[in-house]
């Protein structure tokens, strides 16, 4: 088990290397560049800028230099945020996005599974219809509608929670509204996923056996159904985790959260090469690690899986 774990962590290195290499050259294929402006920049200034960012060198040399920098975890200066390095942007934004994302995902998992259980056990009765309707709303209402509606009622009309901005200004309760908004589509998806898989397990032979043994319905559900039924939910958590952390740009914009999603999206539009690379590296590392954790959880849930 631990040997498997170490091997998986080590396999991160070649994977990231491939991702970095591909991204490094791919983003340079995109038209435009970090210094392209509507107004032409005078040639001499452009030359100076290119020199300042080592972009006057041949591409191969830039690449090798970048690899060397990364080994020292120096992601370079941002091309657009003049006074900030990519490291600084990530250091200040990532913890915020992590906190927001983990909170939202925890809410989504807890409420999604609960709603999934209720609606599966009450299939085709009113609690199921209510749950399924909420899930459909959650999946179809976009975040930029959901967020402002919550802000309008809970933040502005009823003044229960702050409308926006982060912990430094409003304290811990500033997390609640953005986390709810961010969690909603994930909640809806997890609810549908767990409902479907619980229904499938409920029809299986071993549940019939459990019932034929005279077990209480609650024991049947808690001991016999859930372990197997939650496997698909766990699988989904890997990509969901990295998606929710890096992809919260809408919520960050609506609620003025100083997270990492907005600079990441901006970097792509600005051709901010170093920041793009930084976001790619962060996103892939989080995704790979999250999938590793999912695999480990899998090993605990399903005895048929063993890691060697």
């Amino acid at each position, binding site marked *: 088990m631990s040997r498997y774990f170490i091997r998986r962590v080590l396999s991160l290195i070649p994977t990231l290397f491939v991702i970095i290499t591909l991204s490094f050259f791919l983003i340079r294929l995109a038209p435009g560049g970090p210094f392209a402006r509507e107004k032409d920049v005078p040639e001499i200034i452009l030359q100076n800028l290119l020199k300042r960012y080592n972009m006057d060198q041949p591409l191969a040399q830039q690449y090798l230099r970048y690899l060397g920098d990364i080994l020292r975890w120096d992601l370079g200066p941002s091309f657009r945020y003049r006074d900030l390095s990519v490291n600084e942007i990530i250091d200040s934004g990532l913890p915020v996005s992590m906190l927001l994302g983990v909170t939202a995902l925890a809410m989504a998992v807890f409420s999604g599974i609960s709603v999934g259980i209720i609606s599966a056990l009450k299939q085709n009765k009113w609690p199921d219809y209510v749950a399924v309707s909420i899930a459909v709303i959650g999946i179809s209402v976009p975040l930029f509608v959901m967020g402002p509606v919550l802000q309008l009622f809970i933040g502005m009309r009823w003044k229960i929670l702050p409308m926006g901005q982060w912990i430094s200004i409003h304290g811990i309760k500033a997390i609640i509204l953005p986390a709810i908004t961010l969690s909603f589509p994930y909640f809806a998806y997890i609810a549908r996923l767990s409902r479907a898989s619980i229904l499938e397990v409920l*029809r*299986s*032979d*071993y549940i*019939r*056996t*459990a*019932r*034929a*043994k*005279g*077990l*209480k319905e609650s*024991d049947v559900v808690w*001991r*016999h159904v859930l*372990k*197997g039924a939650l496997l698909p939910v766990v699988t989904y958590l890997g990509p969901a985790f990295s998606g929710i952390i890096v992809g919260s740009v809408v919520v960050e914009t609506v609620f003025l959260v100083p997270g990492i999603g907005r600079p990441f999206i901006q970097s792509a539009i600005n051709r901010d090469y170093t920041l793009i690379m930084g976001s790619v590296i962060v996103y892939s590392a989080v995704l790979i690690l999250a999938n590793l954790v999912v695999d480990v959880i899998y090993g605990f*849930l*399903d*005895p*048929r899986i063993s890691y060697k």
Partner: protein
Amino acid sequence: MTDDLILQVKNLRTYFTVDEGLVKAVDGVSFDLRKGETLGIVGESGSGKSVTNLSIINLIPSPPGKIVGGEVVFHGKDILKMSPNEIRHLRGNKVSMIFQDPMTSLNPFLKVSTQMIETIVLHQGLDKKAAKEKAIEMLKLAGIPAPEKRIDQYPHQFSGGMRQRVMIAMGLSCNPEILIADEPTSALDVTIQAQILELIQELTRKLGTAVILITHSLGVVAGMCDTLCVMYAGRIIERGKTDEVFEKPLHPYTQGLIHSVPRLDRENKERLYSIQGQPPNVIDLPDCCPFYPRCEKAMDICKKKYPASVGLGNGRAVSCWLYSEGNK
């Protein structure tokens, strides 16, 4: 004789509502089960054998299934009128079941010990340690080598035959009065089949358990059962002592079934006999004899009305116009 009666199924009817219409999966099935008796229920796939037995302990998935009528009297009480709590007390305790496919009937996510102990703790009120000892003892009885070690393993670490042994050990762990075995050997290979059947026979004799054995194999019935019910399209069409039915089958369907078994003691120069046609489509079945399209002795009346069961004494009965009064 009636004192020994532990289970009486009277006119049991279980229907399924599907998109295409009404399926009368079990339509007026009656039989008695006595203490220590082994009753065989045979029939083709879809004849209602399994549904009959799931109905006995009210485990029909509903919807789409529904027990629409009849009684299942266990020691003088109708199981179908019991509260869910009362039925739960019977299931796995007084009446236990073994299912067809041992590969899927055990929970793959739980250790065998967990699955066995929970039943024993629930019904016998033992603490976990005593229950585990009991479970190990049952596994040993069921012929599982090194049960002390095996009990802490997961089902996927057992072979198919071993899993069915676990199911049997689990089913008998609370000394049930009735063991319902729903095609316990269909999913196993032939050499294991014989072992499993022998095990069921040996253990239930030792414990005095009555057995309802559902099967589509006449050979299994001949070897194990005291009495026999033949089912066709949701009804019992013939019943009686196993020897008598085999010696002199009355219903054309039973005759056909017995005829189509390959025999070792006869020279097989001709083609093996088989019953013509297909089993009927059970959706919205008309009230006629469902076997008449395939019957070599069909008469006009067979297409019009279902023949009532005619008792011939000594537990023998048959539903066929050939034996009904006033058949013309």
